Structures are given as C-alpha cells and as structure tokens.
C-alpha cells in the first residue's frame, strides 16, 4: 500500500496490463471500460502496453467496414480521467516494426505545471517495465 499523493486516505497502485490487439477479441475494449470506471476510485493508475497490446494505440484506426465500434478515441480521453501514465514497451514496438510515430497522440494537462499539455505515452524498456510491475499493489491483465 502506498499513500495517496496529498491525501490522508491510502490508495493502491493499480496497473492494467494490455497484451492483446484490438478488434480480434473484446479484451482491449473491456479493459478500457475497467480503466474508466476505476478512475473514479482515485487510485494510482498506470497502463502498460506490451506484446500485441501496443497495437491498441495505433494511429488511424477505422472500423466502419467491419461494423465494430472504433474505441481508439477513448485512449485520447484518458487524460480527462486523470489517467496519465501509459507505458509502452520499446521491445514490443521494435518487434512489430513500430515507432512512437505510429501511435496516437495521447496527452494530458498537468495541473501541477500550469495545465501544460504533456504526453501520456511513455516508451520504456522491458527492464524498466519489469520495475514498474514490481512496484504495483494490484495488477489486472487483459
């Protein structure tokens, strides 16, 4: 358990681990639904995108012709829910021929820094991600 920043109440560190590509299965969408609901609980929330999970953040998703709702704009709204830490694994990007430029711009307004717009996506190495996982109280995998 870790103390909530600036609050007396204890909060837990929650990590949502996304390892699956969107649309082929519903896991990515329903993971996002948990994140949105969970945001109301004022826990310390991070998201990790590894393996095929990095495809969830691909730019230019257009689902009209498959008849499925395009939920990718929701990632860009996460900042409004104070979900601002989206860790994307560099090795997973490399393995899939992707770079940061292939991903959507996801930003948040930093209330501690005059509401400056900052990137939510942080590209980290596999070993950095292992450290992030080790620092969590609750890990939910999808």
């Amino acid at each position, binding site marked *: 358990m870790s103390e909530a920043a600036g609050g007396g109440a204890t909060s837990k560190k929650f990590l949502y*681990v996304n*390892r699956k590509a969107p649309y082929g299965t519903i896991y990515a969408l329903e993971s996002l639904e948990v994140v949105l609901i969970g945001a109301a609980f004022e826990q310390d929330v991070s998201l990790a995108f*590894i393996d095929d999970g990095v495809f969830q953040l691909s730019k230019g998703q257009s689902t009209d012709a498959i008849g499925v709702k395009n939920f990718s704009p929701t990632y860009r709204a996460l900042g409004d829910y104070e979900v601002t830490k989206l860790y994307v694994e560099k090795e997973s990007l490399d393995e899939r021929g992707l770079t940061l430029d292939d991903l959507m711009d996801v930003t948040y307004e930093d209330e501690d820094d005059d509401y400056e717009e900052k990137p939510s996506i942080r590209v980290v190495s596999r070993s950095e991600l292992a450290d992030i996982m*080790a620092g*969590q109280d*609750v*890990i939910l*995998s999808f």
Partner: protein
Amino acid sequence: MSILHTVNKSPFEKNALSSCLGHTKSGDGVLLIEDAVYGALKGTKSSDQVEAAKSTVGLYVLGPDLAARGLAADRLLDGVTVVDYGGFVDLVAKYDTTQAWL
C-alpha cells in the same frame, strides 16, 4: 515487491511464457497452470529459456494440470516444484502480488 506470475498458455502456441520470463525480477515466482504446464517439460524448444530463469525465479507447476495431461514428474525440468491447488493458494499468499499472463 515480489510477484507471482501465472501462465496458462502452451509455449508452443502463444508467447505468454516467454514474455512473462522476460519481465520477471529476482525473487519472483512463476506458476505454470492449464496448458502452460507443457512449458515445464525437459527437451523442448522452450526448455532453455525456462532453465535459464531458474537461478533468479521460483518455478512451479500445477500438479493436477500435469496429471490431467498425462505428464509424469520425470518429464519435468529439474528445479521445477510441483504444487496442488492448496500449494497454489500458499504461493499467492507468499508473493506480494499476482500477475496473470493471459
């Protein structure tokens, strides 16, 4: 904090075990259940990676899932500990958190 990683996929079908082992830290545990029990076998293409993790990570396999699949203990890599469901519970309690590699 230490993590008990659970893996339930065959290493010959999905990369869950390989990805899991790439994210463990010294002192973590890895428990193979369901189709991941095939990852505990000797002489397979994933044996070397599992073997290499042994020095830093506790390796466990769920006995009931081995038995269901007709896998005898002599097929297992050395250093892999067989547990039953009660042992699974003990492992979850022993490590600080649990992460499922679905």
